[in-house]
């Protein structure tokens, strides 16, 4: 099976700083990775995804880095804003399938 874990349950950053949220996965056959943001009372909101044939992907203010050697995934948020405060989950899919295995989530707190 697959297990997915995040390194820190809570991350506090100052507004304007960069945030890095990390995730580790166990299955080397994992081939698709998604970062989700979840605000209180809402469903997971897609942020960015990456496939296993890539090491890096950039979006608007976000970058996902994938290190398949150590089975590690990170989400970088540039110039963190108060609106970025939420729980962030990584989710992993394996073997071309469509089932997502979620990590436990990191609560990002942005301090003014």
């Amino acid at each position, binding site marked *: 099976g697959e297990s997915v874990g995040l390194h820190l349950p809570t991350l506090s950053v100052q507004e304007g700083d960069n945030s890095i949220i990390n995730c580790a996965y166990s299955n080397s056959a994992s081939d*698709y990775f998604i970062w989700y943001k979840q605000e209180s009372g*809402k*469903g*997971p909101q*897609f942020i960015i995804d990456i496939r296993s044939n890539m090491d890096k992907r950039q979006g608007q203010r976000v970058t996902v880095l994938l290190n398949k050697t150590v089975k590690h995934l990170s989400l970088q948020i540039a110039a963190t804003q108060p609106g970025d405060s939420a729980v962030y989950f990584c989710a992993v899919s394996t073997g071309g399938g*469509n089932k997502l*295995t979620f990590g*436990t989530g990191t609560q990002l707190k942005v301090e003014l």
Partner: protein
Amino acid sequence: EPEVTQTPSHQVTQMGQEVILRCVPISNHLYFYWYRQILGQKVEFLVSFYNNEISEKSEIFDDQFSVERPDGSNFTLKIRSTKLEDSAMYFCASSELLQGRGYTFGSGTRLTVV
């Protein structure tokens, strides 16, 4: 932006009762899913549905659970005889492609079994 719509937002039911959670996936999506999240825990996969049949299900998805796409727009999750431990947020999701972009979640139904 297209949304996955779930109703009701909150459902309270007595133990042993049947509940049906409803979802309207994004219209051009082909794959449909149910996940659940017990309070304070991670989101867990329940079932995926494609071409009018279950394509994969987890150990959680036992005989008490069933899914149905009764018409061209709705996707439902039925729990036949609810237990206290079924209390959770239930999220519906849909995607256009297998492992594709647009894997979109609804806002969830909070099920409380008393």
